[in-house]
């Protein structure tokens, strides 16, 4: 569709195509337009091609891939017509890039003043004295002492601000930001987002903000482009697109995002996204789509314009139903079950050389039978260390952990078989928690053999039922972890924990390395398992959305100390501690969708229900 070129037009990317060496397109037909002062949110799950698109806007493609088609025009300058050397000269001055992991992107041996002035010297636009001005612009201390620091002497948020300062230093009309807040804590993330908003007002640069997190993007973007399998499937003004997504994928994405203001059970999208080389013909989303008809797999649908600036790549776009939010959870506190696990006065430290870091200090709580307790806090709040103490993987300095009233020994090795079996741990990163050299069937059979004394053949006979329990097909038994997706691996890890027939499941950030749509499915599975097996769950997370979907009670931790504990309604709706309030305010959320069910009323209902308690 032809957009009228205005003098304010900063970016005009037409039909970008990036191919792998094998000829498969990573992205195709990607067109983006941006005007001065506008923020475009580019959202997609892993493998959707969003980073490839971001880099292509700088005229760059990763080794192994080539930009084979399309046009990128930035402020009237055509980028892709230039040779490599000339493209490089444009970067920083015409367009700049803010990378995802600032800690890894900054040269650890360059002082930050040098890092920033390097960019300036490259383009000879400014003098050294301006480093201070740039630092001040991103709210960092504009002092000589600060400018002389090395990257490791800065916090994560400060490092990210330095990368933003570097991107700003030559005042380019376009800045591409690739997941700049993904590695950061919620509270730091909120301040960096605030910074970006402020800078947009001040400088008026156009911004492309790439993220997998639709909630973060909704807090920032004027327009949103949703990518799936290398193509833009929907693009439009943020408010319109979020209120009434027209592509079934966008709708599914919106429905997958948990909202701590309205604790519901999420509606998960079925299936997983295909890899670059096995994307289906026709609409790539068709195999996962509920609105799919034979037409969908015949040809790739074209982008059609619905209203001004709102485009969608779906032939059945008018049939897409409005967003339906999951059913609200019944949060009336049931009678408190008798405690299974009790922790009293737990203190745990990490020692490195002569330094001692207190990870948990005087932490006490109890976990009831069949209950889900969430330990919430930022990284470094000690929540993982506490969980590791419970599993016998970290030796506490003080305190008692008792199971059914019996104190547990420190080390897993010293615990009785029944004690080891009762508590099972599911690790954060499913890419690390499965032995890459062992098949799923072996991985799942082992715990039953060791902890329940089953024979090898009896343990193997249970594998099918375990896979079924975590909703994986039986053929997964013969696979190696590398043949499974992240979500499938996490299901296997959960099945491995279930193989021991535990009473307590410790879930350590089990969804934080997964895409939102996969997260919704895993959290749904966890809820089903609790209902089926009566498991008690200790949920460790930094994400209040996840808490609202899953937990019954919440324990808020900050720097190893307990700040507040209470039922989920208490913590989310009437937080008492200032730190809890800060966490809740910082958590990114989608704007309250206007649906026929009227969410505003839903929220009021939730509050009145709570008031009635």
């Amino acid at each position, binding site marked *: 569709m032809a957009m009228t070129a205005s003098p304010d037009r900063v970016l005009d990317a037409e039909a970008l195509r990036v191919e792998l060496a094998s000829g498969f397109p990573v992205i195709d037909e990607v067109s983006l337009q941006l005007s001065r002062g506008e923020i475009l949110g580019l959202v997609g799950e892993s493998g959707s091609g969003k980073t490839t698109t971001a880099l292509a806007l700088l005229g760059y493609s990763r080794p192994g891939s080539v930009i084979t088609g399309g046009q990128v025009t930035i402020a009237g300058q055509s980028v892709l017509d230039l040779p490599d050397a000339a493209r490089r000269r444009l970067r920083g001055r015409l367009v700049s890039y803010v990378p995802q992991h600032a800690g890894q992107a900054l040269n650890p041996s360059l002082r930050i003043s040098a890092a920033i002035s390097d960019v300036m010297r490259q383009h000879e636009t400014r003098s050294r004295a301006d480093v201070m001005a740039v630092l001040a612009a991103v709210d960092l201390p504009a002092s000589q002492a600060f400018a002389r620091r090395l990257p490791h002497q800065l916090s994560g948020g400060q490092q990210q601000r330095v990368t933003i300062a570097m991107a700003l230093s030559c005042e380019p009309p376009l800045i591409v930001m690739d997941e700049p807040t993904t590695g950061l804590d919620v509270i730091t993330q909120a301040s960096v987002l605030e910074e970006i908003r402020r800078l947009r007002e001040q400088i008026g640069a156009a911004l492309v903000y790439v993220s997998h997190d639709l909630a973060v993007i909704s807090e920032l973007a004027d327009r949103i482009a949703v990518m799936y399998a290398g193509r833009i499937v929907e693009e439009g003004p943020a408010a319109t697109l979020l209120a009434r997504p027209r592509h079934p994928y966008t709708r599914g994405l919106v429905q997958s995002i948990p909202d701590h203001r309205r604790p519901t059970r999420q509606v998960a999208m079925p299936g997983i996204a295909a890899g670059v080389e096995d994307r289906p013909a026709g609409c790539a989303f068709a195999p996962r789509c509920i609105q799919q008809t034979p037409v969908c797999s015949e040809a790739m649908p074209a982008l059609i314009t619905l209203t001004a600036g709102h485009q969608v790549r779906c032939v059945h776009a008018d049939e897409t139903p409005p967003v339906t939010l999951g059913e609200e959870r019944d949060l009336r506190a049931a009678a408190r079950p008798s405690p299974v696990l009790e922790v009293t006065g737990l203190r745990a430290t990490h020692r490195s050389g002569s330094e001692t870091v207190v990870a948990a200090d005087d932490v006490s709580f109890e976990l009831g039978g069949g209950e889900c307790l969430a330990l919430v806090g930022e990284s470094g709040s000690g929540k993982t260390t506490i969980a590791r103490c419970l599993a016998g*993987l970290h030796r506490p300095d003080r305190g008692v952990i008792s199971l059914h009233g019996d104190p547990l020994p420190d080390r*897993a090795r010293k615990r009785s078989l029944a004690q080891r079996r009762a508590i099972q741990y599911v*690790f954060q990163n499913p890419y690390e*928690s499965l*032995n890459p*050299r062992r098949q799923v069937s072996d991985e799942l059979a*082992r715990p039953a053999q060791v902890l329940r004394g089953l024979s090898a053949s009896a343990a193997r006979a249970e594998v*099918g039922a375990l896979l079924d329990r975590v909703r994986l097909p*039986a053929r997964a038994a*013969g696979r190696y972890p590398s043949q499974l997706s992240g979500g499938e691996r996490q299901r296997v890890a959960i099945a491995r924990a279930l193989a021991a027939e535990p009473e307590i499941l410790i879930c350590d950030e089990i969804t934080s390395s997964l895409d939102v749509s996969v997260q919704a499915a895993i959290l749904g599975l966890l809820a089903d398992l609790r209902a089926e097996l009566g498991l008690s769950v200790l949920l460790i997370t930094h994400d209040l959305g996840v808490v609202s979907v899953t937990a019954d009670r919440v324990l808020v931790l900050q720097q190893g100390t307990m700040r507040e504990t209470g039922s989920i309604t208490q913590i989310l709706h009437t937080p008492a501690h200032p730190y809890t309030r800060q966490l809740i305010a910082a958590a990114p959320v989608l704007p309250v969708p206007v649906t026929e069910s009227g969410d505003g009323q839903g929220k009021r209902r939730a509050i009145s229900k709570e008031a009635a308690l």
Partner: protein
Amino acid sequence: MITGVAEDLDIKQRAKRRLALPPTLAGKIGLIMLAAVVLLALAGPELAPYSPRLTVGAPYAPSGGHFLLGTDVLGRDVLSRVLFGGRTVLIYAGLATILAYLAGLAFGLFAGYLRGWPDQALMRSVDVLLSFPALVFILLVSTAAGQGIIPVMVATAIIQAPAIARIVRTATLEQSVRGFVEAAVARGESAISVLRREILPNIARPLSADVGLRFTWSVLLIASVNFLGLGLQPPAADWGLMVSENWGGIGANPAAVLVPAALLGLLCVAINLLSDSLAGGRQWQ
């Protein structure tokens, strides 16, 4: 049923993996070269036209006539000695490498897995050995223990073990913080079981690149000790020994030095190409 199918698949996949050829072209070339050298060493004695210990002609007769590769310092047939001389190289260097690996793996795995003071104690003693020049150590041991190939072989194993222990320890440290290892620890599995089932299979790949290098070192160390007159004694036929014996006559009959030297070189290159490829290293296709 379900599990039955899984087991079938299991066996098939394992068999397939065991039979798999090296993934890269370089690896395949290495495999072919290695097969050729091993075949030569094993079948050689059957094909040799003369006895390797008999003087059959004039010393340093050049190639040609009755003697395809000429004769050596004592007038023995070089071809026959080359055909006989591969076995000792393969056996002693192979044994030295295996011994070195047994020691290095044991030290490295336990140091890396237990950490703390056992790690410090094991690694400091390893450092002491590491600071010894290899050849000096082997000469020292073989002079002390008396001449013969066995002390040389054992000394070669001992001097190689520390470097292996260091590599194994680092690889073990890296693996032991991963989730599947912690899951096994939380299940209460014994240290031996964790090392064997969880850690060893995952460090095997990076180690296989090192195996080639160690074997090469063993071949060269034993050959150089043989060359210096310790270890294997004349009139034994051995490629390393042949290079040393015939050094003086390299002008008259170059084949007596160059052929065994080239075979030693070929063996080392072949093993390194193969082990690099199995380690999933360079992709030269």
